[in-house]
């Protein structure tokens, strides 16, 4: 490793760490503001609130019908995770194992929903879903959320499947396993770490997926993040602390899954696709 010891490079390093520190401090202060406000009795023009209370949580719970919203959120996420796993893993298997004309075109087709921002394709998608009557329903929200997650699972799973030796499958075939048995007893156990990582990433992304859900959700099919958006949008109707209490509920929901996910995946995978990390 190269070490620069000139004064200039030390100053440069200090400036870089100061920038990182400034960013991280502001990030945590922003999160702390929300948490503090949710426990505040009255917080106007002072560093800290006048008193502490937990009543905003019970009022937020009833005002925003958080129980219903949470149930819908987890139903949507469960359906999205299950369907994107089923569709994505099978397609990734075909793409990893076979070379056929038009494969590059298909890979491009699966890349596009990840590269194009959801707001751009979400509006035409919402239009189609409104015309078919799916928008506003539970399955409309699930269908919209699946558009980026199915390609995501495919692209995360391809490298995982490619690294499994096809001879193992051939051996299973020789011993008379049919496709179903091959999948259940050979492929699934070998692919489990990859599938788990991919599905956890889908889960974390779906909780925070605002645009697509916002465009197609109806009053009974809102997920937590959309309910939070409407609460902030209509700020002034409710107490700020109540909205912040809801934001904390949302944060806790997200962070629990993020912590679980981080046990199995590298943080950079949340942004980039599963990429082989170079050996350090």
């Amino acid at each position, binding site marked *: 490793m190269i070490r620069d010891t000139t004064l200039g490079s030390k100053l440069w390093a200090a400036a870089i760490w100061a920038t990182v520190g400034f960013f991280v401090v502001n990030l945590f*202060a922003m999160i702390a503001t929300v948490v503090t406000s949710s426990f505040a009795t009255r917080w106007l023009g002072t560093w800290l609130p006048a008193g502490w209370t937990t009543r905003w949580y019970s009022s937020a719970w009833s005002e925003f019908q958080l129980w219903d919203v949470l149930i819908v959120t987890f139903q949507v996420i469960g359906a999205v995770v299950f369907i994107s796993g089923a569709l994505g893993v099978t397609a990734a298997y075909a*793409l990893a194992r076979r070379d056929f004309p038009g494969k590059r075109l298909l890979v491009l087709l699966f890349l596009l929903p990840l590269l194009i*921002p959801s*707001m751009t394709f979400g*509006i*035409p998608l919402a*239009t189609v879903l409104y015309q078919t009557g799916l928008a506003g329903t539970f399955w409309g929200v699930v269908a919209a959320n699946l558009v980026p997650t199915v390609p995501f699972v495919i692209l995360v799973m391809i490298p995982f499947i490619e690294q499994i030796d096809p001879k193992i499958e051939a051996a299973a075939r020789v011993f008379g396993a049919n496709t179903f048995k091959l999948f259940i007893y050979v492929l699934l156990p070998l692919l489990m770490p990859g599938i788990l990582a991919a599905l956890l990433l889908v889960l974390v992304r779906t909780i925070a997926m*605002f645009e697509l859900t916002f465009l197609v959700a109806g009053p009974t099919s809102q997920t937590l993040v959309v309910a939070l958006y409407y609460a902030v949008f209509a700020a002034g109707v409710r107490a700020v602390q109540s909205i912040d209490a809801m934001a904390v509920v949302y944060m806790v929901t997200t962070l629990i899954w993020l912590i679980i996910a981080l046990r199995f995946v590298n943080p950079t995978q949340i942004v980039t696709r599963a990429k082989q990390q170079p050996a350090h």
Partner: protein
Amino acid sequence: MDAVAPAPAVEHGPSLRQRMAARGFDAVTLLIVPAAIFTLLLFVYPFAFGFVLSFEPKAGGDWLANYRRFFSDPFLYKTIANTLWLAIPVTLLNLLLAVPIAFRVRLMRRQRLLTTILVLPITLGTVLVAEGLLNYLGPQGWFNRTLLTFGLISQPLKLVHNYWGVFASLVITGFPFTFLLTLSYVTGIDPALEQAAATLGASAWQRFRHVYLPLLMPGFAITFCLSFVQAFSVFPSAVLLGEPAGVTRVISIAAATAAFEEYDYSMAAAIAMIMGFVQLAIVVAVLASRGLFYRGPASGAKG
């Protein structure tokens, strides 16, 4: 398909199934069909449908009426400039911050803590960041209060419900995204190349300018494009933190208003198409300029 005429001799040749399998089409390939149909139905079809719909104005008129209305109404066409005025500075700032930090972090042993912290705002999402910044950057928030305490300002800065609120939220969610992408490109370059340059007496700046920069240019171009399209489609923070009727009336707001307040799906589709087109134009321009730079292997291989 083979040019061999399917004469009666076909019974001696391979069956259709075998010939298809030889080209890569067999039962396993068919596993791709459900996902492909799904993507065609919910991604390609809506796009095509929206494209056609945008030429069928709700109010009647000729096929270009929506586009003509967009480009003649300043309230609509100014959204493009508003969005670019947000997205381009934010993307450039994020990239300019991300590159030196990634170069520093690449030398760290324990990167995971920092990457985990940076993943937080991405996972929490733009809505929560908007809600947090509303309090934090507000006139009574901790940010202004700290600046006042240190005597850096004499009265609170106005940082929310204007351009800077949206700018701050795009930095908070966009910087980690740009940084983690940049980091994955930077760590992908063989350190032996830099060591070789250092051995030959290149200074830190020379190593960056003449070794890393040419190798990283394609990666930076892609990072810029991905970060830019994210920033260009900003929606929740522009509504919640910005001035949605004024300077931060971005193109997503115009599209959402057309769809959900005016119920003019044709106009909304036209705006979405314009939005996609502007994104595409910028991405193509950036990727085309990539061709001006070095292309080749990024690992130091012995000859």
